[in-house]
């Protein structure tokens, strides 16, 4: 079915895309840490990082609308912080703190979006392996990523089957059906993991 929403822009061609994943991981991580450690009121630094981020966005050729959509995800959090600003009584004036956090949050999510959408997820995992992230963890991640599509499909098929068999029902029955689908999905996923493991053993898997 349709899963274009994952790794949608990974195959574009741009200077950011063609950077070595290992170098990209390191440099983006450094940039990210620089951005999130800006102290309240350091607007000069923020201006430099904003310019740098805009340059990266421009170079990456990833659609601005897509990046904006991902950026909107952090706004519930910004709202919560904004709500509490009047109640804060510490040394830093509230508006400096709020503007800095807002800028840090937006810059960080834009940087992250560009970085992670400029290569397939598998490349990112490979780069993590290079920096000695334990193989056990990256293999679980790779597995999760691989089966995500399949299990998502399975879930969608069950909902299609349900939709084609039921008309609008009362609320308790509807919620129960949803829960039964989730329960079946668990059973099917568990059984699938057993089959996958057996298939791996049959092909000579001895751990790692």
């Amino acid at each position, binding site marked *: 079915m349709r899963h274009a929403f994952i790794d949608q822009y990974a195959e574009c061609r741009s200077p950011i895309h063609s950077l070595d994943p290992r170098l990209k991981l390191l440099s983006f991580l450094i940039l990210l840490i620089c951005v999130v450690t800006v102290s309240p009121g350091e607007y000069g630094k923020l201006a430099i990082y904003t310019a740098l981020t805009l340059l990266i966005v421009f170079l990456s050729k990833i659609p601005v609308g897509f990046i904006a959509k991902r950026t909107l995800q952090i706004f519930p959090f910004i709202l919560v912080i904004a709500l509490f600003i009047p109640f804060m009584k510490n040394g830093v004036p509230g508006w400096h703190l709020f503007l800095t956090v807002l800028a840090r949050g937006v810059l960080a999510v834009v940087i992250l979006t560009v970085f992670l959408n400029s290569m397939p997820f598998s490349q990112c995992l490979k780069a993590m392996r290079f920096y000695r992230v334990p193989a056990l*963890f990256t293999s679980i991640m790779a597995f999760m990523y691989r089966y995500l599509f399949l299990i998502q499909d399975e879930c969608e098929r069950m909902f299609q089957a349900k939709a084609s068999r039921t008309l609008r029902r009362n609320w308790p029955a509807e919620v129960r059906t949803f829960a039964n689908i989730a*329960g079946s999905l668990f059973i099917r996923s568990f059984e699938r993991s057993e089959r996958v493991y057996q298939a791996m053993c049959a092909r000579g898997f001895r751990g790692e």
Partner: protein
Amino acid sequence: MHIPDGFLNAPTWIGSGIVSLAGLGFILGKIREKLRDKTVALMGVMSAFVFAAQMINFPIAAGTSGHLLGGVLAAVLLGPLPAVIVITVVLVVQCLVFQDGGVTALGANVLNMAFVGTLLGYGVFSIVRRIFRTPAGFLLAVFLGAWFSVVAGAATCSVELWLSGLVPLGLSLGMMAGVHALIGIGEGIITCLVVSFVLKARPDLVAVLNEETRHE
């Protein structure tokens, strides 16, 4: 509840990152002892399951909808330690693939949802389970555990925001816990319904029951 990058201050995100990393290392070691070379396949596929289950939008009253967080669900079905790993993997993928939650805030998010939420929720579940040893008591324990996991996770989140000097402690704790006490009811009901389905269909898969029969 996924904290984005740029909100927490350095001591908070580095501190929670170290705590989460140490905890994860310990738990991964424990799980590998028990599951051996099955670890990767089981944890990977079950993480994908929790991810997919979180995407299901349950209809709630008046046109709103909510979704499962799945910490206590995973703990009851798979056992508490595998649940921590599964929820962590889900959080990492949500961060890396969908930019939901930040990279530097990942330690804090893992701490809130995988450790505090899942383990404390499971703790509540097993205490209530010991008090009421009936099938209805089991479901009550699942409900309370799932409810508590959501509230505890939210409370930890507001403590982290307070440590970062962004919100006053009392007010934000009250508000976050209050809002999530309501969200938790939905989580509790959905978790109960899913667990009761699995209990009917494949009781042999419910890890908590398997542990108990082994001890007897």
